[in-house]
């Protein structure tokens, strides 16, 4: 198939390993994603808050050194950096707000454009299967969400551990695991939900509205059920509340942000993921179903 020879020839060169094949999908997706200045601007904004927090932690531990006036108290005794701090200042703003906005921007177009243009047979006729296709598409979101959620969170944890010392690190080791696991669970739920909606709704604007609606409408509906029937189980419909409850559990806190048992929050999130996977399984067919 040489350009000048104009003849077909086969390929007998090296091949990439199967295990990394799915990463081709996010690599190509990022080229389009980063072509958008709005997105790049948004991503930069997402780092301002963690940077500010980093500066805050630095200042907290070095106030005596950097203050122009003498400090007579220990600021680390006034402001305690613990699970509570990470939940409200890192996990909620970075995970729930920034993460959700990022998913809202990228998620809805991930699968819908492939379905609209009948591109699935092109992917699946190659040595990748549906699971790898989904993993590839999830990776598009998961890698970006990681960049603004658990990676800055763990960097802040590391900074705090560096300044607070060994004792703090030993006492709060659980926090690192909770930040990592909790934010990964959120990334997984958010990515799956985005993909499922993208597979269901092929029009991008409508898919964005649907993703937004899934987080707002069931929550409001659940709250109405709670008020009308005097129960707490309506909160099972509030996805944000569910993940907050799971985070509380992982961090060992008990704020009762959502008045449902921890096991119920886990079960609801698992059910939600199961439903999303079922939708993807049903919708991602490399052929048209003629009824």
């Amino acid at each position, binding site marked *: *198939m*040489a*350009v000048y020879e*104009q*003849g*077909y*020839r*086969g*390929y*007998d*060169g*090296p*091949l*990439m390993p*199967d295990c990394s*094949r799915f990463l*081709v*999908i996010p690599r*190509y997706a990022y*080229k*389009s994603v980063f072509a958008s200045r709005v997105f790049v601007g948004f991503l930069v904004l997402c780092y301002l808050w963690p940077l500010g927090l980093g500066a805050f932690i630095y200042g907290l531990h070095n106030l005596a050194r950097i203050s122009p006036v003498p400090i007579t108290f220990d600021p680390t005794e006034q402001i305690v950096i613990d699970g509570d701090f990470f939940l409200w200042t890192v996990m909620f703003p970075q995970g729930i707000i920034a993460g959700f906005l990022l998913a809202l921007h990228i998620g809805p177009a991930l699968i819908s*454009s*492939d379905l*609209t*243009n*009948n*591109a699935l*047979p*092109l*992917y*699946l*006729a*190659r*040595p*990748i*299967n549906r699971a790898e296709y989904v993993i590839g598409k999830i990776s598009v979101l998961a890698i970006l969400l990681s960049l603004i959620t658990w990676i800055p969170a763990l960097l802040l944890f590391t900074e705090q551990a560096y300044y607070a010392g060994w004792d703090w690190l030993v006492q709060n080791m659980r926090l690192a695991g909770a930040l990592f696991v909790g934010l990964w669970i959120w990334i997984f739920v958010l990515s799956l939900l985005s993909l499922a909606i993208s597979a269901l709704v092929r029009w991008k604007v409508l898919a964005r509205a649907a993703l937004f609606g899934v987080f707002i409408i069931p929550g409001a509906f659940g709250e109405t059920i709670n008020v009308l029937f005097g129960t707490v189980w309506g909160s099972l419909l509030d996805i944000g509340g569910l993940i907050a409850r799971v985070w509380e559990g992982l961090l060992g806190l008990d704020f009762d942000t959502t008045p449902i048992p921890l096991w119920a929050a886990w079960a609801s999130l698992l059910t939600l993921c199961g439903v999303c996977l079922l939708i993807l399984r049903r919708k991602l*067919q*490399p*052929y*048209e179903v003629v009824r």
Partner: protein
Amino acid sequence: MTQPVIELDGLEVRFSGRPILKKLSAKLTGRSIGLLGPNGAGKTTLIHTLLGFHPASAGTARVLGHDIHERSREARRLIGYMPENESFIAGMTAVRFVRLMAELSGLPAKQALERTHEALFYVGLGEARYRRLETFSFGMRQQAKLAQAIVHGPQLLFLDEPTNGLDPPHRQRMIELIREIRKADDIHLVLSSHLLRDVEECCDDVLILKEGKIAASCNLEQERRANKKFIELETVGDHEAFARAIEQLGCQCAIDRRRRIKTVLPDRLEVKDLYRLANERQVQIRRLSFKRDSLEDIFLKAMEQPHGRV
């Protein structure tokens, strides 16, 4: 013995309990295989099943020796597929699209880019390769689909209705490309079409499907050679008695629906023997023509069979 390109072993596919492919068994060994059949015969379903898109409800199949269930990934590694419907990835230039497909097939990025350019030049999209696919005409998109199907150098190329919807110049170009690819040593072709002319121009072997069953399977060249003395007669008079008389001479003879007599003359007989016989039987021969049993004849014969194979 040559390894079959495709081996169907009692392959059955059902959709919602309805059988679409019914116990197909065949060994296809040709370099270029035509998959013929009317719409709804199961051609695309067969290709999809071989690609692993549909699970078989019974039986199995092997593609280049790889079982489509147990070693589907290995089989797909060797396959290039050009789907029937419009298929592309939006927002991409032709180069990015074909390169993505090459990398998904396992080619490293550098080799993928190199072969992408080659493939796009090869199919005739060299000048348009940096244009977005959405801006391509239908014919150009078909060419882009062909480029993505061959970019990774497959050993077996499935072409599902590649000339569908193309205008005559694009169709001719597509047929030329397919014939060109067929010449390469290391590739087999399966061309699915309901257009007999496409199959006749590009294929050596033909598998005719009808209502999910194999209605006929033959080698076109052998068929042509076997029927080189095929003669068609248009007569006036008792053509049935005349046909019996021809048979008594030792010829194979048949009367078609248009009451024309088709006969194959053995070497010892000549055309003048037929005229002599017609004279004896008081039958007028109005027209006599030498014909080959065309693919159309084979196809129509297959379609006429209520069940079973030709």
